[in-house]
């Protein structure tokens, strides 16, 4: 996407970029190409390159809103800290490990996840209506949001980039088995695949199958086996699985 030079972002460029973006946003697309005047930044991965002036434009917006006393920087810090450091897939892993070890909890979780999960007292707002769907030997569940990026924030935190990306969103509904293969999950032909497209207020989390060979393990040990991807439905778990994702 970036084709421009590595020069310092001049005032003029900053202004034209911001104006073009604003114009594009309100539906005037004629001048949108001006917003492509950008340079590439390395973030250690290739699929999310960023024009340099976005950082300046965000800073400009925050300054204006702070000056108008509409937001406090510390308020933003607290919101970010919650999802960067406190709420994430470890929440979901705790829920899964308990469901594996406590049949009564599992029954309540599948019946009414919001109430069952309230017992954990996770931090953050709980505006979600969560539905937990269970993987079984002959049923595999997969979660997607084809229209946007809906995701169970309170148990999994914020979604990874691939979940919000066009390749996953476009294909998960029409070719779930192909998507799963890409993630290294091979399903037998007789396994039923259920794809859950998060279009309304309900959010979905997959209860993965408890891996074989884990009979003697404690709830805390089991929790360590549960990956984020298994709760989206793009991974199956093994007793030896090291937790490879956040």
């Amino acid at each position, binding site marked *: 996407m970036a084709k421009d030079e590595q020069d310092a972002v001049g005032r003029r460029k900053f202004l034209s970029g911001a104006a073009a*973006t*604003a114009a*594009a*946003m*309100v*539906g005037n*697309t004629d001048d*949108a190409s001006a917003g492509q005047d950008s340079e590439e*930044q390395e973030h250690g*991965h*290739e*699929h999310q390159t*960023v024009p340099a002036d976005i*950082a300046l434009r*965000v800073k*400009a*917006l925050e*300054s*204006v809103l702070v*000056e*108008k*006393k*509409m*937001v406090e920087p510390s308020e*933003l810090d607290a*919101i*970010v800290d919650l999802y960067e450091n406190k709420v*994430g897939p470890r929440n979901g892993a705790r829920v899964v490990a308990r469901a594996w070890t406590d049949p009564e909890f599992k029954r309540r979780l599948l019946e009414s996840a919001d109430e069952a999960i309230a017992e954990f007292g996770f931090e953050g707002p709980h505006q979600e*209506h969560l539905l937990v769907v269970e993987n079984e030997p002959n049923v595999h569940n997969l979660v997607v949001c*084809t*229209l*946007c*990026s809906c995701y169970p924030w309170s148990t999994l935190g914020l979604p990874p*980039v*691939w979940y*919000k*990306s*066009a*390749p*996953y*969103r*476009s*294909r998960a*509904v*029409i*070719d779930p*088995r192909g998507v799963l293969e*890409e993630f290294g999950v091979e399903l037998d032909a007789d396994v*039923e*695949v*259920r*794809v*859950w*497209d998060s*279009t*309304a*207020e*309900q959010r979905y989390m997959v209860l993965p199958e408890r891996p074989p060979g884990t009979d003697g393990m404690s709830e805390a040990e089991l929790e360590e086996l549960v990956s984020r991807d298994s709760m989206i439905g793009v991974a199956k778990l093994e007793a030896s699985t090291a937790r*490879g*994702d956040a």
Partner: protein
Amino acid sequence: MNGIHDMGGMDGMGPIEREANEPVFHAEWERRVYGLMRATGRWTVGRTRVGFRWAIESIPAKEYLRISYYEKWFAMLTTRLLRAGLVTEEELDSGQAATGQRPRLYARESSEDVSGEPDPSPRFREGEPIRVRNLHPRGHTRLPRYTRGKIGIVFKQRGVFGLQDTDEHGISLGGRRQEVYTVRFGAQELWGERGGTSDSVYVEMWEDYLEPV
């Protein structure tokens, strides 16, 4: 709207690219965009209030596919603040407020029903076949294109929720409260021979999207 965002079932988007040990945010500006989005919604109450999903979907298609997720959020954020009259383009350009005057904060509308009227009864039963109406609204809708005209089975009644759809300018259509259903579609009903014989897709649908078979 029949926009690029409504991409369920499309080919040609390329392989899924994953990042090992992906951080929650990739840059400080992404953190600020996320925080600003969450912190500013209350200010649009009582003003021209365009839906945030509408604002993302209104990004021109070629831009939508080019820019990153949080760039879309920044676009959406500025659209909403501009439309609400809370900031001006001059302020966004200069990074300086034209006035230090704090705008008036209006009370948030309740998302619950305040009319005192009982919830409407669901029109469709669990297990009942339905057809998705062939709707092509110009505004925001939660009805994915790939389901339109298709026949599914009501899997569950999910309770009463306000409709989230907007008009073509992003303004709520009134949030009419109605039953939302989880509808199960056989994969072959949606995708013909490309669908797995035993596979299915579950989609939540407001009652307005459905008609009896």
